[in-house]
């Protein structure tokens, strides 16, 4: 029998039906000796599922075995209980399983704990009374039992972290003991003490510490400890590290730990092992939600991963990109996602929140619909239609968007439409039906012709036909001849719905009065639906009270009714006597309701699909994906519509510098083929630093992009107005005003302008004394020369850079050269060229003020060094000092000390990475030795030193 049962299991696994053996499996479990029992139980747990009827036969056996003194029998019973027992059988075994919690054998206790956990998952309220016993299990002397109890706590804490804060201390202690190697040696796996236990504990701790400073403080130490301990290079330690990093980022932040965690992520991402890379990307995805700048450090890796052959990695990378999407990089990211869409149907639609403009948005949606098509979730097209229908605040912009949509759909339809997915066709026909009239240049007949053509195609499903017909109904006004033909053709159609619609269409098109009446009421109805659906149905009050007076039972909400019905069944009452009046009254209410509200629609079910579409779109509770887009998109647009004048030719090119920068590039990044990737990187990561002008770390391109504002300053909308009462400087004799716009650059084209520090002084135009106009709080900062950027007859612009400790300020002076008053100056800054940003490098570092001793210590701790001989300015009396001073002036360095023929100089990046320079006079040359923690920084500084010395006038 036993052998046969094993064979049956095998057959079942291969997919053959072995249901005839089920009953024998139960018998075997019931009657056999220990050996047979084991196979029987095993077979039962494989064959039967929670809902199987034969399971009832097993209850008695399980009860008997749970009470058995034989360890193995008890174990088997517990395993089966945890695997297959359904909700309604739990009460039968619960007391016995509970007793097992105090069983002398730990294996039994462990299994009992897990069985109880399973019960908790199935029916939480049935095990409520034993929570205290879970606590006992947590304090069990056997680590195995404690480990299994962690499963329960993980679940409990996920549900309500607040109730278990008091246990934080215990968890921390447990983790400490585990880390300290207090567990028996056989819990080690690859020399790591109980790794799975650690994983579990870390997860629990991160849940407990989330948004709770005091709890988080308890665990800083142990997290630090486990980050430190997990140094061995094995998979399982990486698993622990990953969990640690996640915990560190989840709990209340602590700078020191964050820094360590960041380093760990770096190691993950850069790891050659693909599994670790995957985890690194996952960690990054998690972390960028807290700190978007972290992605900047790894942008090159991310770009590489984007082209990775591994599907999983690719997908994870896109997930990451999706998290860092913003208004500037959305175009590139969505492009990447569309590429991906061709391979699989996965696009997080939220990315489109940042769409830059209408035509792009519509075009992208077209791509999405035509490639993703019917595989997309239903709510994507719904949301899209909703956006079109409801629009945003401004009517004009809505119409523009709709116009784009209509235009592009007409183009699509004129091409070959047969291969397009049904859903896309439906969407197009709806949009054309609603908004085709907005496009005046296109003849309505043309639209009708296109739609009719579509109707005739064989590949179009009947559901889509209905959509098309209702669209036709809406635009058919005045085109009676075409419509009549169409209706004639369709009235012999096989599909009854189509036939009905065609009939209605014909009626409507013949009777223009009816048509208008219907349209009018439709609009009214839609208004009712979208604005005030009277959910309380107050107009029915009178009727209800009448019915109540006549003896009807009061209305009960459905869930209550359901409950009562259940109770009825459970109590074995006669269900009908009770529930009949309830259903009657609710029936009559709905009957009554339809004539008052929906009578109009019953007359014209031809439009019912579209009706329900509208009703649906207004009542569906949809995550406001597109709505957000609407707002943001338009907001964006307002910004960009302001400047009509573009002066690309006059855009600033710090000319010589740019070339130089380009020459520098190969030196830094030997393979020039990387440039494409860098460009991609720059377009992907632009704008990430938004919100803060302080950079955190050191990846060169990243930090530059972030700190550096913009060049290519282009364009201002200026509307000269003759001086009126509200002109700002109207009573000044020269009628000239200045605005010193101190813009804190937030990356990309986001500019916060602090305008209107209107100065009364008016130095002659072109004077270099513009700096006098700086606001008081900026006046004392070191600044570069004011350079004129561009000018035209009415406006001239110049800029200067101010060096603040933590940021670089770009001040733009805009002066009016005309006699009129200028109002409303809008400045748009765009950060376009990486190379241009590059040339600004020289101003991104600051002097580092240290003493000679500190310098000495720091020097030893730095890793990357570069040596080179530079030209010495020999003409002066003290060549070394002169040279260093020249460098100091040009590059914002700090000369720490000069001892004999040697000098030491220090500077740091804005982010804090120091660079130390050691200079020694060596004949006619200056031997320069640079050290920095950052690999590229010394090269950069060296380069700039060279340039500065070459430019110094003799």
């Amino acid at each position, binding site marked *: 029998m036993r052998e046969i049962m094993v064979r049956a299991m095998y057959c079942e696994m291969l*997919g053959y039906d072995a249901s005839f053996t089920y009953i024998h499996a139960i018998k075997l479990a019931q009657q056999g000796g220990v*050996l047979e029992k084991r196979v029987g139980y095993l077979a039962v747990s494989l064959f039967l599922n929670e809902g199987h009827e034969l399971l009832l036969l097993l209850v008695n056996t399980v009860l008997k075995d749970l009470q058995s003194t034989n360890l193995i029998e008890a174990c088997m019973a517990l395993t089966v209980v945890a695997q297959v027992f359904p909700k309604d059988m739990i009460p039968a075994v619960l007391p016995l399983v509970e007793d097992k919690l105090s069983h002398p054998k730990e294996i039994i206790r462990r299994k009992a704990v897990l069985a109880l956990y399973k019960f908790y998952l199935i029916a939480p309220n049935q095990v409520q009374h034993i929570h205290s016993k879970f606590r006992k299990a947590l304090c069990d002397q056997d680590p*195995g039992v404690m480990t*299994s109890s962690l499963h329960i706590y993980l679940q409990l804490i996920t549900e309500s972290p607040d109730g278990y804060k008091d246990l934080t201390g215990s968890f921390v202690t447990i983790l400490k003991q585990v880390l300290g190697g207090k567990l028996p040696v056989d819990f080690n796996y690859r020399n790591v003490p109980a790794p799975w236990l650690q994983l579990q504990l870390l997860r629990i701790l991160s849940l407990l510490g989330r948004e709770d400073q005091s709890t988080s403080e308890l665990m800083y130490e142990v997290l630090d400890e486990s980050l430190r301990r997990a140094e061995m290079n094995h*998979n399982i330690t990486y698993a622990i590290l990953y969990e640690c990093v996640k915990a560190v980022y989840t709990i209340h932040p602590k700078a020191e730990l964050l820094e360590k965690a960041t380093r760990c992520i770096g190691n993950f991402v850069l790891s050659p092992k693909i599994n670790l890379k*995957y985890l690194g990307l996952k960690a990054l995805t998690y972390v960028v939600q807290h700190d978007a700048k972290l992605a900047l450090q790894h942008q090159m890796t991310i770009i590489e991963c984007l082209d990775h052959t591994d*599907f999983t990695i690719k997908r994870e990378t896109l997930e990451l990109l999706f998290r860092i999407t913003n208004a500037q990089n959305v175009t590139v990211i969505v492009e990447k996602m569309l590429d991906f869409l061709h391979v699989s149907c996965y696009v997080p639609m939220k990315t489109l929140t940042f769409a830059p403009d209408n035509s792009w948005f519509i075009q992208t949606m077209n791509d999405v619909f035509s490639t993703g098509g019917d595989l997309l979730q239903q709510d994507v097209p719904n949301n899209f239609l909703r956006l079109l229908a409801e629009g945003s605040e401004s009517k004009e912009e809505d119409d523009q968007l709709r116009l784009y949509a209509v235009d592009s759909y007409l183009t699509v339809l004129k091409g070959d439409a047969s291969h397009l997915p049904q859903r896309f066709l439906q969407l197009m026909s709806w949009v054309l039906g609603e908004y085709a009239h907005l496009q005046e240049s296109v003849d309505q007949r043309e639209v009708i012709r296109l739609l009719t053509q579509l109707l005739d195609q064989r590949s179009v499903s009947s559901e889509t036909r209905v959509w098309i017909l209702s669209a036709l109904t809406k635009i058919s006004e005045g085109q009676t001849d075409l419509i009549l033909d169409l209706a004639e053709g369709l009235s012999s159609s096989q599909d009854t719905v189509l036939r009905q619609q065609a009939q209605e269409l014909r009626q409507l098109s013949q009777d223009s009065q009816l048509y208008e009446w219907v349209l009018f009421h439709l609009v009214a109805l839609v208004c009712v639906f979208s604005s005030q659906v009277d959910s309380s149905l107050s107009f029915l009050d009178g009727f209800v009270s009448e019915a109540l007076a006549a003896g009807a039972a009061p209305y009960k909400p459905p869930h209550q009714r359901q409950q009562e019905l259940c109770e009825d069944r459970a109590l074995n009452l006669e269900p009908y006597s009770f529930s009949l009046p309830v259903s009657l009254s609710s029936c009559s209410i709905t009957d009554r309701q339809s004539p008052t509200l929906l009578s109009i629609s019953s007359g014209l079910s031809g439009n019912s699909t579209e009706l329900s579409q509208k009703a649906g779109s207004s009542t569906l509770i949809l995550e406001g994906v597109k709505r957000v887009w609407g707002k943001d998109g338009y907001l964006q647009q307002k910004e960009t519509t302001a400047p009509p004048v573009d002066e690309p030719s006059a855009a600033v090119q710090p000319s010589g510098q740019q070339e130089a920068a380009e020459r520098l590039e190969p030196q830094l990044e030997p393979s020039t083929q990387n440039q494409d990737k860098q460009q991609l990187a720059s377009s992907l990561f632009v704008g990430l630093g938004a919100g803060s002008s302080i950079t955190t770390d050191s990846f060169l391109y990243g930090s530059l992009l972030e700190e550096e504002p913009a060049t290519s300053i282009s364009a201002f909308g200026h509307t000269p107005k003759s001086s009126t009462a509200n002109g700002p400087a109207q009573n000044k004799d020269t009628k000239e005003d200045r605005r010193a716009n101190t813009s804190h650059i937030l990356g990309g084209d986001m500019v916060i302008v602090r305008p209107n520090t209107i100065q009364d002084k008016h130095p002659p135009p072109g004077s270099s004394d513009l700096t006098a106009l700086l606001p008081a709080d900026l006046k004392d900062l070191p600044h570069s020369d004011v350079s004129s950027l561009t000018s035209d007859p009415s406006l001239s612009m110049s800029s200067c850079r101010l060096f603040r400790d933590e940021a670089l300020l770009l001040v733009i002076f805009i002066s009016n050269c005309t006699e009129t008053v200028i109002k409303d100056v809008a400045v748009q800054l765009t950060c376009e060229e990486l190379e241009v940003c590059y040339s600004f490098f020289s101003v991104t570092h600051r002097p580092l003020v240290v003493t000679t001793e500190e310098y000495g210590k720091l020097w030893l701790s730095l890793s990357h060094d570069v040596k080179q001989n530079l030209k010495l300015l020999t003409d002066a009396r003290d060549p070394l000092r002169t040279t260093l001073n020249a460098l100091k002036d040009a590059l914002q360095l700090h000369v720490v000390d000069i001892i004999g023929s040697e000098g030491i100089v220090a500077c740091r990046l804005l982010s804090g990475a120091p660079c130390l320079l050691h200079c020694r006079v060596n004949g006619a040359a200056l031997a320069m030795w640079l050290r920095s923690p950052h690999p590229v920084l010394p090269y950069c500084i060296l380069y700039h030193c060279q340039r500065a010395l070459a430019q110094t006038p003799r």
Partner: protein
Amino acid sequence: MIKAILIFNNHGKPRLSKFYEHYTEDTEQQIIRETFHLVSKRDENICNFLEGGLLIGGSDNKLIYRHYATLYFVFCVDSSESELGILDLIQVLVETLDKCFENVCELDLIFHVDKVHNILAEMVMGGMVLETNMSEIITQVEAQGKMEKSEAGITGAPARAVSAVKNMNLPEMPKNINIGDISIKVPNLPSFK
């Protein structure tokens, strides 16, 4: 939690399947086929994690697999499990099997389905990891094995026949499962400081 544990060979023939959530017979077979389809397409040197597997639970679901000689070990888990942790759990499972069967091979899994299931039951219970301590698992399994021997007596003959077949060394037999990974040192990465 773990939703299913599947073992199948290079041709997609299932060797062991254990589901911790309920699916119908047909779905289970489809899941096995789908999983095989997903996993077998992948190269050796790309990562051991896969998202998807529509039947078993969609995007929340992850497949974590290892490939040993002729067999794929696949764990279907939800997002609450640690990927690397599960990857090492597979390693533990295989090592345990290796210890229990002394050089485990595909045939062992075929002829001792029940024993493999018992080992698995000691490690994972109801979708939860019960025990990861290899010596503990082996102790439990051996305790049960002893019981088996004392009761088996004459009925143990078939098992002996099987082991005889196993030792006949037929040429077309699959080679032993390679558990080379145990001794291979992981190449050094820059250590975390």
